[in-house]
């Protein structure tokens, strides 16, 4: 290089002068915005006050507790080895013992991908604005396909302030619709009345069984026995039960321990699931949406074949139940219909025989008889009615049907017997908590008068488009109030007349921690709705499918960038208490939801103190210090953590030293405390034991205090506050499900001509995701390609081979996937995994991601239940091949 120049003949001095001048000019250019692309001299005498300096750099790596905060049910431990703000590796529970009684809380493939949530390239880094959006010219049709530009937090806050003010003052109450609670603190303080949504989401019709005296399996644990008691079962009969895919974590491990202890599993499911395989279960293939019919037929068999109490526990029915026959009628019923006479066909001329059910369920009548006999009173049986089979339309009385079936064999209130819903929120481990989170105390926040009206997810997109909707929040309130609170909720409603529908002038959508375009039915209509309003704000970690249709997106921190918290305390395994400790600085310009609201609130003149005056760290400390753990006697409690003066000093908080089970420093470093169990310990739980032993002394929370085969309350709530026009009876009756098996036939004529959508589609949970979360993680996309599962027979009839790109269509929409052919799926059923982020080809209107909800519809029936597992489809080979998900960018906007 030097040699080349030696031969060059030119004016060195002028060139130098020009270069020096240019250098000065370019050095003088200021970089807009923050300092993210500037270095500074980080020596003691040059660094700005308080800024890090080079010398405090050499921080050793340390393990920090970072449990998953996702809603998959596992609630497992993730730990991160953090060095100087960088996650060097991830770990999990490798310090507890691991056997059939006490399990480590090991993370799954999703937990080990957690760093993609916190450090992924596709995290939102800055506030961004859609390029062709302006207050005067919003170009709403470009949502989802526009370019973007970076803006400052100040600009974003100003835009949002102006639009909220304009829209609320122009259109008034209910003109702003929110998804998720990330912005509700602000609207509340601004005295704005707004709309938000409720949904039965995962629960299905097990959403509010408190009216029937049962816990829902999520907010309320009193729905099944303690997991160790399941080792005493002879049989576990389960409906739609697949923790091996739905939850991961320990739910399957616990079930395996029951099998090892001698329990025989019988699982009704359209798929021979991994759970069935692991548990060596007897698989009973059943058509989606027909579990109620199978349950009724088995109840019929018990009635038919019982001889002097050989199968039915008449004593239990007599003492503990009402509504089963004419001699045991509740005083509050409006009709004299009883359940046994319904089963016998007294009211509709149709005895609910196994042969009747076989036609609907596809389960041979003999199999139903065989399982029914197993359900007789002399066996110790647990019935696990998973939420999956209740995520179907028109099955509002499925929970009651399941309880009745269990009650007939007397499988309630005694060891080795248990009946109710099951879900993964307690990791298959029901009963009162053995270690409880404490309280952080008041934050000192002050509120306003703004309140939310709730719309059911199944009506929300139509409501945005101006159609009338049911404004009752009773279902959501019942869900939250549970068995002991439902009567207070009902007292606030007039159940004698039908709820009146209203309309709302929805002009703005504010989406925070809910992925509605992924998880809410009718996403195709959702896209239209998102494009119909005047302003859309999105906030979150990523440009999710929903945020993609926003005008302004705000970057939000993850739990790894916050002070710390108890994650999902009420929903986790009763043996354990996980704690989350923040360990990273906020990613680029992201803020917590609360900080974002404070930033926008300032534009309205709201003081930051309105969001609280007590520091997050103080509240975290308070919560940990007041956490308690049960003692060996199963009665008394002690502090979970001991705290010393040194601990308080290190935390930099106010507090008092205290005695406790383990040092606070150890707890915070482990992130997990586990109460060890042993067979015969004092921590067992038999659901409804006191009731069974003394029903008059320990009534359950139904209207009558007994198990109700006829529940007038449930019928009254449905008939007055519900979504269907047909009347519900107090006793469970089979209803033809909308988009069910019957609907695959023209005019619902079973065995007749098929419609254009002859297959039944279900949405299995899929290992790649926790609902919509993790869909964007490259590792998981590689491991779990998210095909559509087709029964071999159905595929062959359609000329579809393994790996072919196929189009799955319903009356509501179309989506593309690669085919996976399997003999583990009942013919006539299609498995389209739950949760991909929609990716619509604007030219064809066809979704490319396999989104299940792009092909479901806004169907509101009964209690407004989401009917994800009732959908009729057709599958055809598609001309063009789609790439594997792992080959495509994490989210594509520019096509």
């Amino acid at each position: 290089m030097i040699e080349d120049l030696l031969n060059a003949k030119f004016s060195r001095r002028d060139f130098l002068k020009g270069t020096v001048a240019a250098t000065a000019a370019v050095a003088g250019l200021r970089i807009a915005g923050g300092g993210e692309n500037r270095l500074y001299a980080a020596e003691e005498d040059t660094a700005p006050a308080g800024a890090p300096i080079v010398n405090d750099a050499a921080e050793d790596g340390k393990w920090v507790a970072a449990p998953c905060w996702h809603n998959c049910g596992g609630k497992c431990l993730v730990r991160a080895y953090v060095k100087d703000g960088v996650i060097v590796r991830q770990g999990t529970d490798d310090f507890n013992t691991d056997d059939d009684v006490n399990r480590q809380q090991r993370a799954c493939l999703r937990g080990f991908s957690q760093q993609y949530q916190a450090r992924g390239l596709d995290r939102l880094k800055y506030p961004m604005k859609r390029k062709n959006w302006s207050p005067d010219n919003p170009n709403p049709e470009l949502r989802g396909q526009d370019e973007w530009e970076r803006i400052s937090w100040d600009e974003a806050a100003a835009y949002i302030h102006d639009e909220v003010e304009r829209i609320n003052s122009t259109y008034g109450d209910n003109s702003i619709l929110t998804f998720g609670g990330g912005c509700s603190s602000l609207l509340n303080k601004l005295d704005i009345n707004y709309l938000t949504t409720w949904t039965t989401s995962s629960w299905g019709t097990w959403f509010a069984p408190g009216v029937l005296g049962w816990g829902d399996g999520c907010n309320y644990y009193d729905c099944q026995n303690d997991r160790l008691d399941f080792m005493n079962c002879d049989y576990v009969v389960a409906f739609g039960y697949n923790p091996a895919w739905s939850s991961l974590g320990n739910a399957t491990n616990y079930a395996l321990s029951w099998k090892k202890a001698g329990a025989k599993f019988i699982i009704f499911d359209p798929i021979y699931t991994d759970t069935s395989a692991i548990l060596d279960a007897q698989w009973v293939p059943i058509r989606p949406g027909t579990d109620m019919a199978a349950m009724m037929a088995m109840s019929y068999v018990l009635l038919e074949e019982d001889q002097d109490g050989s199968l039915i526990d008449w004593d239990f029915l007599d003492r503990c139940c009402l509504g089963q026959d004419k001699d045991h009628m509740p005083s509050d019923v409006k009709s004299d219909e009883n359940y046994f006479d319904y089963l016998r066909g007294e009211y509709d001329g149709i005895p609910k025989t196994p042969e009747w059910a076989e036609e609907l369920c596809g389960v041979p009548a003999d199999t139903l008889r065989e399982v029914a006999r197993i359900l007789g009173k002399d066996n110790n049986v647990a019935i696990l009615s998973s939420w999956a089979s209740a995520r179907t339309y028109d099955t509002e009385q499925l929970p009651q049907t399941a309880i009745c079936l269990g009650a007939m064999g007397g499988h309630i209130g005694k060891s080795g017997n248990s009946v109710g819903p099951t879900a993964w929120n307690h990791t298959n481990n029901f009963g009162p908590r053995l270690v409880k989170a404490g309280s952080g105390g008041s934050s000192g926040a002050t509120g306003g008068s703004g309140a939310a009206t709730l719309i059911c997810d199944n009506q929300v997109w139509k409501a945005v488009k101006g159609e009338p909707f049911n404004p009752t929040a009773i279902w959501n309130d019942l869900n939250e109030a549970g068995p002991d609170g439902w009567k207070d909720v009902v007292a606030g409603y007039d159940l004698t007349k039908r709820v009146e529908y209203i309309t709302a002038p929805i002009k703005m959508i504010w989406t925070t921690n809910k992925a509605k375009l992924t998880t809410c039915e009718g996403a195709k209509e959702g896209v239209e709705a998102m494009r119909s309003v005047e302003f859309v704000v999105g906030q979150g970690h990523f440009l999710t499918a929903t945020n993609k249709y926003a005008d302004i997106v705000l970057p939000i921190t993850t739990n790894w960038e916050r002070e710390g918290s108890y994650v999902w305390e009420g929903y986790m395994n009763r043996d354990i208490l996980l704690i989350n400790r923040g360990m990273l600085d906020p990613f680029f310009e992201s803020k917590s939801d609360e900080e974002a609201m404070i930033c926008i609130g300032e534009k309205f003149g709201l003081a930051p103190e309105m969001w609280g005056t007590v520091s997050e760290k103080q509240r975290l400390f308070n919560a940990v210090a007041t956490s308690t753990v049960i003692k060996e006697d199963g009665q008394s409690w002690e502090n979970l953590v001991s705290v010393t003066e040194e601990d308080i000093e290190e935390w930099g908080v106010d507090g008092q030293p205290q005695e406790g089970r383990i040092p606070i420093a150890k707890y915070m470093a482990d992130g997990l405390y586990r109460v060890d169990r042993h067979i015969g310990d004092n921590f067992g739980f038999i659901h409804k034991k006191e009731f069974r032993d003394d029903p008059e002394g320990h009534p359950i929370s139904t209207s009558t205090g007994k198990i109700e085969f006829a529940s007038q309350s449930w019928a009254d709530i449905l008939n007055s506050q519900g979504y269907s026009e047909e009347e519900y009876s107090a006793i469970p009756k089979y209803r033809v499900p909308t988009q069910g098996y019957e609907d695959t036939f023209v005019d619902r004529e079973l065995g007749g001509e098929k419609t254009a959508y002859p297959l039944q589609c279900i949405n299995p949970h899929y290992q790649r995701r926790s609902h919509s979360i993790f869909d964007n993680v490259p590792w998981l996309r590689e491991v779990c390609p998210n095909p559509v599962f087709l029964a071999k027979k159905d595929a062959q009839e359609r000329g579809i081979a393994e790996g072919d790109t196929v189009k799955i269509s319903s009356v509501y929409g179309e989506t593309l996937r690669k085919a996976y052919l399997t003999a583990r799926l009942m013919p006539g059923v299609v498995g389209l995994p739950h949760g991909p982020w929609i990716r619509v080809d604007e030219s064809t209107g066809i979704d490319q991601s396999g989104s299940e909800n792009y092909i479901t519809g806004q169907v509101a029936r009964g209690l407004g239940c989401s009917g994800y597992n009732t959908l009729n489809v057709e599958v055809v080979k598609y001309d063009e091949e789609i790439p594997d998900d792992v080959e495509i960018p994490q989210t594509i906007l520019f096509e």
Partner: protein
Amino acid sequence: MDHGFCRGLFSVLFFVISHPKTLCQKTELQFTEEVKAIDREEACELLLVNRNYLYQLMYKAFAREPDPAFLSILTAPHTGECFSLLGGEVLEAVPAYLARLGAEREKEKALEDIKEEYTRLFVGPIEPEAPPWESVYVGEGGLLFQESTLKVRECYRRFGLLPEEYRRVADDSLALELAFMAELSQRSVDAFEGKEVGTLSQTLEAARDFLTEHLLVWIPQLSRKAAKAKTDRLYPRLLRILDSFLKKDLETLNDLLVMAKKGENAHD
């Protein structure tokens, strides 16, 4: 530095650079005044100053969306000459390219289009098409703040530097790595002028090591990725130019180091 002074200096220089004819009429670059073959020391100075300018320029080019002031400097003829001085097919074509760009940028919406391209390639909010972080290319893929990021931070630390948004932004972004090279090249120029041969060698060596261990490992990949993007306003081309410049600069640094070592030995 004092901002008022900066702005003053800037406005004068901005005039000179944005009116290149003034400069050229006076110098017509190569041949206006006495022309003689330059000696080795003069050549070194020329190269040191030249690379300092180009690093400052490249740093600013990738730090944020462009503004008119930056584009004026970028498209000034002198900038092209600074690149072409280094030779090679890509860099010799730079003056013609920048002249074209200079003409195009007068067009309506040109600046807006370039900003849009910057956003799509480097910012998001979707996954950027040409992610400007080293860890994306040397690590597991798709992740920021990796162990490789710590190694980059260690290089900054050795020279008393840290990112202003320490721990909030990844240290191994294209702009920060170029800011580091710009800082080192400025220190090399200062050391040359102050005749501090030891410091000169030290800064040149650090620059060479940082180039070979970091920038040259991933910029070729970044450039290829940007070339595949469905956009070609400025940045895909600029990354190709950067890639060539970095490779040339490694040659330059090796030459300069030989000279600096000689100087150091002479000093001893």
